[in-house]
């Protein structure tokens, strides 16, 4: 009983902290700069990480199995992974823009997990025989970590595309407030970057130069994060295959979820291959290369969501543990 209340408390704490933190950060960026709150984002994310981890641990203790057996738990784990990525990227002190992606992503996944859609999954349930294996921890956690990393990386690529084609978007939606959101986001990136660049060096303030710097950094960080995510995805898929061999006798069944994970893997392999410089002979245009790969990564963003969520909506196949119906029964 104590664990359920503890879970409840931690869920609310984590969501509140991260909403407060994001609100503060948005205020700092857009409204007024309050110096004392500058590093509140870091501390807030650390607090969120601890509360989400505490939530997972208390679920683990109360149910007796690793907390990854249904969609709710996997979403919580996903938000945990986002906060882990945020903290790791800040650890190296690299002054990157990842926090713009990880913090909102955490709040979205955490919000969706704790929202009214999934209330019937909130209680920790027993584990079916097929999931009682050591491989559960390894396979599912690797897959979720990889989803988090790949989502971050592909969102950075989407940001890069938005910023690169901002002029076109401006012309396209002049007077149309519908597309305010994409370049609002770009504006945030832009201001963030401008501030951090100012801190480092003193440049002549050419707007194009800032834009170039920003796209370079986005491109670079998107590449690094996606490479990391790709490694995790490879390990996760292969762990899943070995587990399937142990449990069902064949390591690849062309199950919808497996197939879509493989499609995700293929798309990001294409991304990595579009970044090699071998085949670009005539056009050594850096920006062209980075736009190409950013396009592929953006497609990858959609594919990950289909793989993770869309298949669960169908609820068929061997991976049906994560399924849920949209109308709460």
């Amino acid at each position, binding site marked *: 009983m104590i664990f359920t209340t503890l879970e409840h408390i931690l869920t609310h704490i984590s969501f509140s902290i991260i909403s407060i933190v994001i609100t503060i950060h948005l205020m700092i960026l857009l409204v007024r700069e309050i110096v004392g709150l500058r590093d509140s984002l870091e501390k807030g994310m650390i607090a969120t990480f601890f509360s989400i981890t505490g939530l997972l641990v208390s679920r683990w203790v109360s149910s007796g199995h690793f907390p990854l057996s249904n969609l709710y738990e996997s979403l919580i784990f996903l938000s945990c992974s986002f906060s882990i990525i945020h903290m790791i990227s800040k650890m190296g002190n690299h002054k990157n823009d990842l926090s713009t992606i990880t913090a909102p992503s955490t709040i979205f996944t955490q919000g969706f997990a704790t929202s009214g859609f999934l209330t019937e999954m909130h209680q920790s349930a*027993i584990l079916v025989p*097929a999931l*009682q294996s050591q491989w559960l921890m390894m396979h599912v956690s690797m897959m979720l970590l990889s989803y988090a990393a790949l989502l971050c990386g592909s969102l950075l690529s989407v940001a890069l595309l938005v910023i690169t084609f901002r002029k076109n978007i401006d012309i396209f939606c002049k007077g149309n407030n519908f597309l305010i959101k994409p370049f609002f986001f770009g504006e945030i990136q832009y201001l963030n970057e401008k501030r951090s660049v100012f801190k480092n060096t003193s440049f002549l303030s050419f707007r194009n130069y800032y834009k170039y710097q920003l796209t370079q950094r986005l491109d670079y960080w998107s590449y690094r994060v996606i490479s990391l995510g790709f*490694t995790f995805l490879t390990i996760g898929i292969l762990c899943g295959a070995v587990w399937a061999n142990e449990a069902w006798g064949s390591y690849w069944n062309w199950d919808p979820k497996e197939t879509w994970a493989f*499609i995700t893997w*293929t798309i990001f392999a*294409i991304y990595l291959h579009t970044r090699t410089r071998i*085949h670009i002979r005539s056009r*050594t245009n850096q920006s062209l290369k980075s736009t190409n790969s950013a396009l592929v990564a953006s497609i990858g963003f959609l594919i990950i969501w289909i793989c993770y969520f869309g298949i669960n909506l169908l609820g068929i196949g061997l991976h049906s543990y994560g399924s849920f119906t949209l109308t709460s029964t």
Partner: protein
Amino acid sequence: MSSLLLNPNRAFFPLSRQVLEASFSSLCSISNARIPLGSRPTAHRVVGFKPRASRDSFDAEALPESNTKKKSRNNNKKIILFGSTPPPLSEERGGSAGNASGKPAAEGSSWVFLQRAFKRVLAVLSNLPLAIGEMFTIAALMALGTVIDQGEAPDYYFQKYPEENPVFGFVTWRWVLALGFDHMFTSPVFLGMLILLAASLMACTYTTQIPLVKVARRWSFMHSAEAIRKQDFADSLPRASIQDLGIILMGAGYEIFLKGPSLYAFKGMAGRFAPIGVHLAMLLIMAGGTLSAAGSFRGSVTVPQGLNFVVGDVMNPNGVLSFPSLAFDTEVHVNRFYMDYYDSGEVSQFYTDISLYSLDGKELMRKTIRVNDPLRYGGITIYQTDWGFSALQITKNGEGPFNLAMAPLQLNGDKKLFGTFLPTGDADSPNVKGMIVIEDAIGSSGLDLKTDPGVPLVYAGFGALMLTTCISYFSHSQIWALQDGTTIIVGGKTNRANLEFRDEVNRLLDEVPELVTIDKNFNG
């Protein structure tokens, strides 16, 4: 590991500095002795290296000195300006083709023609946009395979994709069945794309990646400050000694080569080799998968508790290369089948106690299997996959026990329903009076048997793929430095981690101690 990948015949790559020091100590005495060591006690560990004197121990490719053949100069430039294309295939191939055709000149042009055709095919296959296109196509086909329901009877497709009302305006059942999309993952279209991808992988590895490795392994000192300044990252330290830089870089994990005023350092060479490993691992997995598809056996059986069966009777071959093994002659006895339950009544685990007997009655093995814990014997694996009821044991009014056979009833969903009937004798008597007590439910265990020769190959490929994907995350960084008077000019580049490299080198350069007094004899 690096010793295998680097040229094994050459000792010039300093894998163990002690060895190198012993062999080159005489050559190095000049560069080592002149520097006032003083407060730098470990300077002697920085090994000087004079390739000129030992040029004859190199092969023709690996000459770093300045006045060598023009071809190696071009190749050296490939290291420095990596944005350019790899060594043009036709030039090298032309050389080797010329040599090859020089020998069997008498055998005529057909051999040469075949070789040229092969090389052209190789060049076409190793085209990167083609490979990307293939990967996209495979991804699209797989997506299609999840959308179209697989493995149904043709009637299903007649109804779902009717000719009168085609999906998306043109997709009728004719398309689906003709292209084999109802069994997408074994259809000729899909398998053909996979074979093409495998061929592209092999061609790319052979023509592009291996020469890149050769190029990356060759390195040269840079002797001019302009060349160093042209690097991606360049800086200069006004008052410093190149030995200090070498020591600091060594502390950061770089391998150092120092000759006179020039320094070359690199780190993370494995990051260049790993992509080749990735491709090879994928080829291994594909080979293993092909073997599995061609040579495996599968079988599925539901055995009531207490009964037995012979392995060979239930196994069906899967492909053309399936050969039954000796282990197929074992009998499998299901001794007991039972389940564990949670407090809520749901099943927590299924257990089957199995004994394997040889045909002459000797017990070979006994194990209790459960889901996720199969039995392995002689290449055959037995999995717990299903369960059922075979009979109900009842007593009526104390008489009995009677065994009533049960049969599964149709029910949609996850739950199962079994039914049986009680023979009452007289069809007209409406009531059956008496007490029926269910003594026991005899279960039957659903077992899957499988033998798969490709599994070791596939597992090896999996392990290699995981490892090489991790390793290829690392970045191959190279740093050149030149001592120009009391200034060091430093330049460097890396193939993956550009921004992090900049920060790292900035940090390292900040650590280089600044020389306060200039020694007059100090000329590097």
